[in-house]
């Protein structure tokens, strides 16, 4: 027999008075948040020094649920905000939690520059292939031919391969998992949190209400079953070979894990030099 409980062990990381959250049944964001909090539990990050920054969209609501200093900024500007936050207060651990549209459409420019500079932050992008909050419009990661409200005849645009963009821009840690690969996702999040430099974790997530419903996956369960059938783990491959297509395989794994001098270290050295 199951035991009825009132509280969850991870509630201490949540603003529990705001649970249940606003996300739909079957949404991948809850799972991503769950893995993230479990990752926090298992690393030794001092919560007092953790700051979570998010943008606009369903993924942007994550910041509001985590009981740390959290910042819900404007659309696409989570990364520059986080850059300022981290540089002004280097002892903070800054995590950006946002969506594919927020980080790569309007925020695309900011993403590639932060990665190029190797700013010490962790970016977790929950990729549900559309703009869910506003009703299911296409986004930069909508697969070719998929249906969205602004692509009623099927999407004609080639999507981004987010891991490729991150790696090409200079990120030092790049990994992709689906919300089905919960344990590996949690491990990757732990690695990303402990990594010095710009680390990126892409979480492929269902969006039954806005995207799945229009693309033959009416429930979150349908999408997860697809992930089960079609995910292929390939650690260490060139991310450019890991495109996502409708009906195709989803290649997941840890693609990039390198060491590089960070912007934050360089700034510190610069200040030391200038003060001599």
């Amino acid at each position: 027999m199951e035991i009825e409980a009132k509280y969850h062990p991870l509630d201490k990381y949540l603003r529990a008075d705001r649970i249940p959250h606003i996300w739909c049944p079957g949404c991948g964001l809850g799972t991503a948040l769950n893995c993230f909090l479990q990752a926090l539990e298992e690393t030794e990050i001092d919560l007092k020094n953790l700051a979570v920054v998010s943008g606009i969209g369903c993924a942007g609501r994550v910041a509001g649920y985590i009981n740390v200093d959290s910042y819900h900024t404007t659309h696409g500007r989570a990364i520059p905000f986080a850059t300022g936050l981290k540089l002004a207060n280097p002892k903070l651990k800054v995590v950006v939690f946002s969506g594919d549209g927020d980080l790569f459409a309007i925020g695309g420019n900011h993403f590639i520059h932060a990665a190029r500079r190797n700013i010490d932050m962790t970016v977790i992008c929950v990729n549900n292939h559309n703009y869910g909050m506003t009703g299911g419009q296409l986004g930069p990661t909508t697969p070719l031919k998929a249906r969205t409200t602004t692509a009623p005849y099927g999407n004609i645009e080639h999507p981004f391969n987010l891991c490729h963009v991150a790696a090409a821009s200079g990120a030092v840690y790049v990994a992709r998992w689906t919300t089905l690969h919960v344990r590996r996702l949690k491990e990757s999040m732990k690695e990303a949190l402990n990594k010095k430099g710009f680390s990126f974790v892409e979480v492929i997530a269902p969006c039954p209400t806005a995207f799945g419903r229009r693309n033959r996956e009416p429930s979150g369960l349908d999408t997860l079953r697809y992930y089960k059938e079609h995910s292929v783990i390939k650690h260490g491959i060139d991310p450019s070979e890991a495109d996502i297509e409708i009906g195709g395989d989803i290649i997941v794994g840890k693609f990039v894990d390198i060491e590089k001098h960070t912007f934050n270290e360089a700034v510190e050295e610069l200040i030391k030099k200038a003060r001599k």
Partner: protein
Amino acid sequence: MRKEQIKFYSGNIAAAEGAIAAGCRFFAGYPITPSSEIAEHMARRLPQVGGIFIQMEDELASMAAILGASWGGAKAMTATSGPGFSLMQENIGLGAMTETPCVVINVQRAGPSTGMPTLVGQADVMQARWGSHGDYEIIALSPSSPQECFDLTIKAFNLAEEYRVPVIVLMDESVAHMFEKVVIPPENKIKIVNRKKPDVPPEEYLPFKPERYVPPMACAGEGYNVHVTGLTHDEKGYPQATDPEVQERLVRRLCDKIRKNERKMRDIDEYEMDDADVAIVSFGISGRSSKEAVKEARKQGYKVGLIRLRTIWPFPDEYFEKIAEDIKKFIVVEINYGQIKLEVERNVGKEKVILLPKFGGEIHKPHEIYEKIKEVYNGN
């Protein structure tokens, strides 16, 4: 030839259909509540009429894209709400400076910043006028019903083409999401204005030499080799970024072409104003609540009328100066903390103006306005 049609549209859909009826064949936009339906409808309809729809990566890009499309010869439009409107300001300035005809729909929501995405606001009025930097003028229209969304969007395109200026359609979330009957006139009854083309050969053409304030426009690929720049430029279009005379001449013309033609653009819906001694000034959805309140007040014998602005910018200064002679008090009803009120005050004097603001994301209830009318009368 399309005959008259009766449709049941929301304000957003009516605006999109109005654009198509006006000849809009290019839409670049970005989803934002409460205007996303316009983009979605254009995505479906534009290919059907041979037009192009593209969802850009952000509003900045959307505004830049419609300017480009306009120079490519198309009638172009975008639609957004407050946060997106803020992002578009830089390129609205470029549109004003380069005299590019285009239409920007701003479906206002409660702000500031992310605000209340699903609730109504009318607080972008001043931003529509002053949002970008420098001296310039734009035109802004304000519909109060889906029918007006249809009609005024067509008017917006016509004004844009005639005056070569970005025209803002200042909708609000209530009108955008309201469903009402819309009568679509037969195709030959819809008046369409197109930009004036040069009637001289390229050697004689001066791209920014005005004919009664507005120069004829030669688009890309028509053989005129026009240079278009946001820098201060002379009649040839060449940058003259250090010449005070050129600057004065240019800025003066950009502003005068709108200011001096205010009367032609004036569009005010007067209701029960003939013998009124108190007037309500309103626009958009607030105009409808106000009308109900005026009806009730008239039944009770109060001599109150409604001035509903359909063209907000350029503001009808002359009209207000004149009407101030007969009206003792102006009650400004708007869903913000006082924006049109400032314009009315400027023209009729602060003592004559009372503001009835409401900005929690709700519309005024007619009886609230009626109570204010009574208060004003009894206060006298």
